[in-house]
């Protein structure tokens, strides 16, 4: 079962000759700035068309992009969620389930980065898409919100692509990861293999201190990450 297939996909000046078959439930796209992560995610969501090659994807894909505030379009959080959830009741149910009813009457534009990110992800899944992409989910988030977001992503039933350079976060929610550099895919493998690969170092990415210790002790990094972010043994 695949969720996304990229066949010889190029987009002039951004990515070239990408071949991927993505079949894990959550997949992390890792790489330094400008390596093509955002481009890959937008192609996976159908927001960009490749200049050559072919992208097979779920029919509808939700997207939470880098700046969550750019996707808000109403004066209150509840009105805003209603836009994509269809009804106010459904919007309220989504907020309740996330434990965020207290934000219902706030302006989305005055939310903290952490709150805005979570609402943006909720908005992206509120129209029941068959897949989801989240660009830089943890940028600007403290540990509490990173954990919250990890639990949210972990609880979803649809395939998810996340992009960023937060290795520890990726290890906690993703089963597979893709490493990109200068618009090409360097490596696509399961998270544990990626975390112990020297390719990570070659593209200038570094796991956090806990993950490093786990690797040194020979523990499975993804298990340790799940423990830290999700409070489970995985």
């Amino acid at each position, binding site marked *: 079962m695949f969720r996304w297939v990229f066949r010889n996909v190029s987009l002039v000046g951004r990515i070239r000759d990408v071949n991927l078959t993505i079949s894990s439930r959550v997949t992390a796209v890792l790489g330094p700035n400008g390596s093509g992560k955002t481009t890959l995610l937008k192609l996976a969501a159908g927001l960009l068309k490749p200049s050559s090659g072919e992208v097979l994807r779920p029919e509808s894909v939700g997207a939470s992009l880098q700046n969550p505030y750019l996707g*808000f379009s109403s004066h209150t959080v509840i009105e805003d969620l209603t836009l994509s959830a269809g009804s106010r009741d459904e919007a309220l149910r989504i907020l309740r389930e996330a434990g965020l009813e207290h934000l219902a009457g706030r302006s989305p534009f005055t939310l903290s980065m952490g709150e805005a990110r979570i609402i943006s992800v909720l908005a992206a899944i509120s129209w029941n898409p068959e897949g989801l992409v989240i660009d830089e989910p943890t940028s600007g988030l403290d540990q509490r919100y990173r954990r919250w977001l990890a639990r949210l992503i972990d609880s979803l039933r649809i395939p998810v692509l996340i992009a960023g350079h937060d290795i520890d976060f990726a290890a906690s929610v993703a089963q597979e990861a893709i490493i990109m550099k200068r618009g090409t895919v360097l490596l696509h493998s399961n998270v544990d293999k990626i975390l112990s690969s020297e390719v990570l170092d070659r593209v200038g990415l570094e796991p956090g201190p806990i993950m490093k210790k786990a690797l040194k002790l020979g523990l499975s990094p993804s298990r340790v990450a799940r423990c830290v972010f999700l409070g489970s043994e995985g």
Partner: protein
Amino acid sequence: MYSSGQKAKITPPTVIAILALVLYMLVSGQVLAASIVGLIIGILGGIVFHMPLLILWIAVPTLVVVAVFHGVLAAIDTTIRVLTVSLTASGLISMLGLYNLRLFLEGLGVPPKASILPVLIARQADIFSMIVRESLDSLRGRGIKGVRLLFRLPIPVLVNAFESSAVLAEAILAKVPERRMSTLFWRPTGWDVLIFSLTLLSLYLL
């Protein structure tokens, strides 16, 4: 596109002369010739291919507003004129380079704090078109489509553009030196000759 210290393709006198010629053509009723010159300059300056959204944002509202009040024909005429002027001006400025425009303005005696204005406005245009694109994608990523998308788009664009503009203006103005920069000397380039010939050619042929 607007890197500082960029080499000018054309010289300031050409910019002014062509702009004046195009305006003259529009006033004297040679709209077709003027619009062709505008289009060519827009293409040569990279505006048509690099900022198609900007063109839509100028053309669509003009078309709609004038059509409502004065009918479709008047709307098309007005839109062509507005597009011609904006394509000519932005194309010429992009070929001159903003940094050189600033030097030119300072050479004319405009104080440094004011001559930075075109740079500021262009940076805002860059940011603005990025905000429009990202907001569009963000809303589509929430399943919002079609007419609803067009109605919803202005809200995030306006809220966020206002915020970024304020931050940017402050940052740029903080860096403007009080002292004037060196004066600029010009030698006509092949581009000056090319643009001039094209403009005069269309003026006489059409």
